[in-house]
């Protein structure tokens, strides 16, 4: 790697008049950020790693005892925790698949010359600009069996979206799809508009039909950026808390972060919840790594 050479400041600038160098200015910008990261991210991360090996309870004054890997061992042997993971996986798959299909579809529709394209795109982006809590609250109203507009519009009578244990998770996923498809759409749109028009012309000349063109030209060329969208959405969906927590309290919608929340702040098993948080972190890292590997492979092509 080349060593960066610090250039001298232009002597006529005010910073130079104060006797500052480029180095001073660089530190001025970087040090606060690093301090912030250490205090609010890195320190708690390491501190909670320590707690995860203890039976510490934040609700009592009892001293924390070192218990070794007991928390991890018990958590990984706990069938209920695995059920939470299974629910989370189901939620991630349904929600991310839905977002990709809807988002990419919308991007395909928008990737052409249509009137008011800019306005339309902005309007479509609105859901993801709302607060999770707000979205949760008003979807709860939309889903309401007796006066919700969804049942009214679909003519479903008093169909119970959120209190039906088999439906509730899908209802949460549906809300998540509504909220985050625009994100996939935005990235896909960027990818789609980056596909050179002359490639489509070449494909037309080469007598490729629309489907063949889509699967052989469009999709492979958009794949890298679509993968990035999928990585982001998978990570987010994996740690979903607010939507599921606000919308419903069914045991079938108890995704892993809700379990974690309950363990930490209702049951006050601080040490054990730290261990669970670490298990979740490692899982998210693992999944992300698989995606990144795949992304690099896609990019190479």
């Amino acid at each position, binding site marked *: 790697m080349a060593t960066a050479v610090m250039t001298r400041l232009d002597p006529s600038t005010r910073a130079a008049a104060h006797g500052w160098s480029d180095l001073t200015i660089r530190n001025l910008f970087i040090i606060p950020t690093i301090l912030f990261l250490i205090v609010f991210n890195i320190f708690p991360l390491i501190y909670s790693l320590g707690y995860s090996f203890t039976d510490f309870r934040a609700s009592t004054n009892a001293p924390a005892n070192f218990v070794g890997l007991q928390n991890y061992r018990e958590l990984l042997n706990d069938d209920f925790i695995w059920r939470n993971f299974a629910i989370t996986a189901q939620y991630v798959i349904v929600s991310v698949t839905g977002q990709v299909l809807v988002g990419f579809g919308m991007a395909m529709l928008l990737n052409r010359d249509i009137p008011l394209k800019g306005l339309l795109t902005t309007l479509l982006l609105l859901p993801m600009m709302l607060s999770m809590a707000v979205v949760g609250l008003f979807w709860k109203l939309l889903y309401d069996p007796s006066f919700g507009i969804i049942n009214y519009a679909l003519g479903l009578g008093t169909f119970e979206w959120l209190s039906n244990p088999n439906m509730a998770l899908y209802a949460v996923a549906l809300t998540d799809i509504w909220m985050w498809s625009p994100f996939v759409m935005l990235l896909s749109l960027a990818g789609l508009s980056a596909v050179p028009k002359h490639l489509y012309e070449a494909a037309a000349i080469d007598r*490729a039909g629309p489907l063949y063109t889509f699967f052989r030209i469009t999709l492979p060329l958009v794949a890298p950026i679509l993968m990035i969208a999928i990585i982001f959405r998978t990570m987010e969906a994996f740690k979903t808390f607010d939507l599921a927590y606000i919308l419903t309290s069914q045991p079938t919608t108890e995704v892993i972060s809700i379990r974690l929340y309950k363990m930490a702040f209702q049951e006050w098993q601080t040490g054990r919840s730290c261990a669970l948080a670490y298990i979740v972190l490692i899982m998210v890292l693992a999944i992300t790594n698989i995606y990144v590997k795949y992304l690099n492979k896609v990019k190479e092509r």
Partner: protein
Amino acid sequence: MTQIELRGLQKFFGAVQVIKDLNLKIEDNEFIVLLGQSGCGKTTTLRAIAGLETIDEGDILIDGQPVQHLKCSDRDIAMVFQSFSLYPHMTVYENIAFPLRATRMSKAQVDQEVRGIAKILRITDLLAKKPSALSGGDMQRVAIGRALVRRPKAMLMDEPIGALDAKLREEMRAEIKRLHVKQGSTTIYVTHDQIEAMALADRIVIMHEGVLQQVGSPDEVYRYPSNLFVAQFVGSPVMNVANAAVAEDKAGASVTVQGAPQGFAFPRELLSKLNGKAASSALSLGIRPEGVLVQHEAADGFLPVEAHIIEPLGSYDIVDLKVGDQMLRARTRAGYVARAGARVFARIDPSHAHFFDAGGQSLGVRL
């Protein structure tokens, strides 16, 4: 066996007419070059034939069948783009196989065709590579391969070698010619480079501002340009054009370039050939640099002139001679005129002279 015919083609981009009543008949196996400056409508014409551009009026006929309402895929025409337009995520093999696979050809047959065309183009060892790993020339070979592999009715080429550097361009030019001779398919080739056009074409179609100027073999358009535009567009260095007056004198006729004290001697038959065709005072004389003869000694019919600028081009020099108000560029042996400012004697070879009327149309007078 493919004939292409354009009948009364008109194309507008908004209010701008880019193709004006274009009529052209292209014979089977012919190599046609559309030549013109950028924006003259040549690429639009090509894209209209390919089906990438709609036309506003007229007919495009392939083998007598009107195709202007067909999609490109139904016209069975292949095209090579200036930007190569290779599929960046596919290997060379997959790129060439693309048009075959798109029509669901069997795997074995695809393989045979791709390897066959790769051999002809000498790119067999590149088949496993990605386009991004290729040089410009190889990219264009692949693009040509992709066009040729499905044996299209006609090949369209849109400045296929315009993006390459000069040396490679010359190489690829020869290669395209070789391929055409070997494969023999009706080809329409668009370029703004007149040297390319001359080297490749069976017939050159010269366009200017959407209007067809002249169609003819390279030799015809070079020797008998139909108007000033063609005369000055074809040929390098550019043809000299000067306002000139024709008069009778005792030796025959003389053509005086504007501002010159003396005229160049011409045979008397010029007068009878010009007779009645145009006012003899509002003529333009066109003469290619090789038609301006230069020598060091004074002689009959030679005017004393001053060499102004000398461009040594290796195998020959281009010397700017000041004649009256005009500069005449002459082509001389390398090093013949030693330095700028030298006094030499010049004459015009009457058999190389062209005459144009005030509107720039050729008077068709050749001696």
